[in-house]
């Protein structure tokens, strides 16, 4: 379409990040460079993941339309490295729990946004052809911001020494959900043949539920002491 359309998509994708950064008070902590560091860690982790995948996972050469369940599951398992990365970022920042979580999640999500959505948007949304998928991509980036905040908070809770025994199980379940969410989504889309808009809606709902649960746990944990 036009540059204007690109502007639209860009605004839809980036402004929620900006608003979150400003409103969460991160700007007052001077956390910009901390976020950039988190982003750099994201890059490093992705590189390691890619190397690992390229080395140990042969390319799936099954027929078209056949879903390689086990292979995809194994690939999703590699995303556990994300948890490690998030933990690494958080462990290097001193401060309150919220602050650590927000810095790690913001840096992480923004790095992903820049790396994996900026170019497609620039190339695609500016092209002649109109397609709803760029608007969908922008919505998806909003969802992934929420997703990473929830994930960071779950990781933070998981790594606390003073985590009560009763919390252990739900936190682990949430952790698993966070890691395998993309895999589950793909499975849903494949099984129920969802359209792109429905898939986006399902993803939003799933992410919403996971984040609400983690928020409950977080609130309970923080205010129980």
């Amino acid at each position, binding site marked *: *379409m*036009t540059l*204007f359309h690109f502007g*639209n998509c860009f605004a839809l994708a980036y402004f929620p990040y900006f608003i979150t950064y400003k*409103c969460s008070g991160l700007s007052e902590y001077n956390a910009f460079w901390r976020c950039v*560091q988190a982003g*750099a860690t994201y890059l490093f982790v992705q590189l390691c993941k890619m190397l690992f995948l390229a080395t140990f996972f042969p390319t799936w050469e099954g027929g078209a339309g056949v879903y390689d369940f086990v292979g995809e599951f194994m690939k999703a398992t590699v995303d556990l490295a994300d948890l490690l990365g998030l933990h690494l970022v958080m462990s*290097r920042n001193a401060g309150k729990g919220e602050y650590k979580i927000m810095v790690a999640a913001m840096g992480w999500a923004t790095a992903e946004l820049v790396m994996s959505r900026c170019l497609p948007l*620039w*190339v695609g949304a500016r092209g002649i052809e109109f397609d709803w998928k760029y608007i969908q991509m922008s919505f998806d980036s909003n969802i992934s911001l929420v997703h990473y905040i929830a994930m960071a908070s779950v990781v933070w809770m998981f790594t606390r020494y003073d985590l009560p025994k009763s919390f252990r199980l739900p936190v682990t379940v949430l952790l698993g959900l966070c890691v395998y969410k993309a895999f589950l989504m793909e499975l849903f889309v494949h099984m129920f043949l969802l359209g792109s808009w429905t898939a986006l809606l399902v993803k939003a709902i799933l992410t919403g539920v996971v984040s609400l649960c983690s928020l409950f746990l977080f609130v309970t944990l923080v205010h129980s002491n």
Partner: protein
Amino acid sequence: MFEEASEVFDNMFKTSFPLTFIVFIPAVLILVSPLPAEAAHEFTVYRMQQYDLQGQPYGTRNAILNTEARSVEAEVLSRRCVIMRLVDFSYEKYQKALRQSAGAVVIILPKNMSTMPQDIVQQFMELEPEMLATETIVPVYFALEDDELLSIYTQTLTSSPTQGSSTAAEVLLHTATANGFQMVTSGAQSKAISDWAITSLEGRLAGVGGEDLPTIVLVAHYDAFGVAPWLSYGADSNGSGVSMLLELARLFSRLYTYKRTHAGYNLLFFVSGGGKFNYQGTKRWLEDNLDHTDSSLLQDNVAFVLCLDTLGNGDGLHLHVSKPPKEGTPQHALLKELETVVASQYPELKFSMVHKKINLADDTLAWEHERFGIRRLPAFTLSHLPSHRLAQRSSIMDVRPHVDLRKLSRNTKVVAEALARVIYNLTEKGAPEDLQIFTEQMQVQEEQLSSVVDWLTAQPRAAQLLDKDSSVVSTLEHQLGRYLKDVKRHYVKADKRDPEFVFYDQLKQTMNAYRVKPAIFDLLLAVCIAAYLGVMYLAIQNFGLLYGVIRKVTQPKTKTH
């Protein structure tokens, strides 16, 4: 290790961050700037004819197209690409589009032309010369229908704004849901092809019995013509003439191999190129033979020249002459023999002689024999068409089903019998009128004719597409070589300074249809996004409320711990 790595990152970003930013971002932008957009649909389009003949331009003069598609019913057509289907095509609509200065016209033809109703085919056939008669500034393209293209067409039809009845809300909804299409051709602007050579082929069967034998010349042009060169298959005109000529060559070559049937006539066969462009191949051949060489079969004692043009259908045979033949000439003899053969063997066939004087004031000659007539050679054209003006001779609708093989082989038989009667002088020798020479082993082979016609109509044969290396020309040469002696090629190239004919390229292109939305849609989207972002802002601002609610809910639980 992680600590070290992140320290490296740290330093890099802190020290040279602005630098990397300045270098990296423009580099990325430059790299991705040529937009590799994926098209909604990609299809092949065939451009309308573009040529100059005797300095006069014909056809469309443009090849570049990059505009939005509209159906012809839309109100504003200026600088839009008008899409029409053949079913709805009419000259008024075409003219309307051109008058409103449309950016281009794309006409969608059905995949299988022969399934169209006859009246539509007939109507379009008659429009073709009209469309080509004058030069058109905007590009005109023809596309073959497929499902994607049809859906683009219907979406274009529905998206053309309907006036009056709709409310503002409907219009808004319409802009959001309806698709527009941007039509883009990939090729460059059309330009004249320099040094284009038109090939003609000649071959002969020498007679026996002394010097200075009379020569009979058989001529048929092999090129086809239609509104779009890539769609010109020319089955009847002049695939039928060429196949008949090849069959006659085969029959007479067999007769000429036996001493008893070797006649005292030279037979000269000529397959001419550029026949649809004022018989350029014939013209040059005559010049070469009459002006530039000393001895040629054409220079002395030509009995007559028989041109074969459009003979694959109809129940009539018309001998077109520019001057009625005098009694006693071989020309007159052939006329009489044709009458005899038709009357005695095929009474259902209507044979007549059509007399039309050569009009030198016309831009183009009517029939091929007029080229010979101008050079004072006795010539006529045999055709099933009663007039040279009929559109069948220059139409893209002239495809394989237009040739009726039974009629073609019957016509071939008539011509062969009449020629044989002239060559062997059978009437004067007192042979019966219904004597059939070409029977049994010597009969006209329908399969032979059919295979030649099938092969000729398997590819478009416009003069612009057949250069000297093309398979059509070389196969024709090979076929002639099987029956005839001294098969030679003759080339015509247009004069550099004052070209008689100029052809142009870019006749076949790939067109992309990109799905686009109107500018108002972008504005609408911007408003929606602004509203969404506003809601987001409020939600994040008031995140504390949610936090508080959850805290209240969880408070009792924590007390029970």
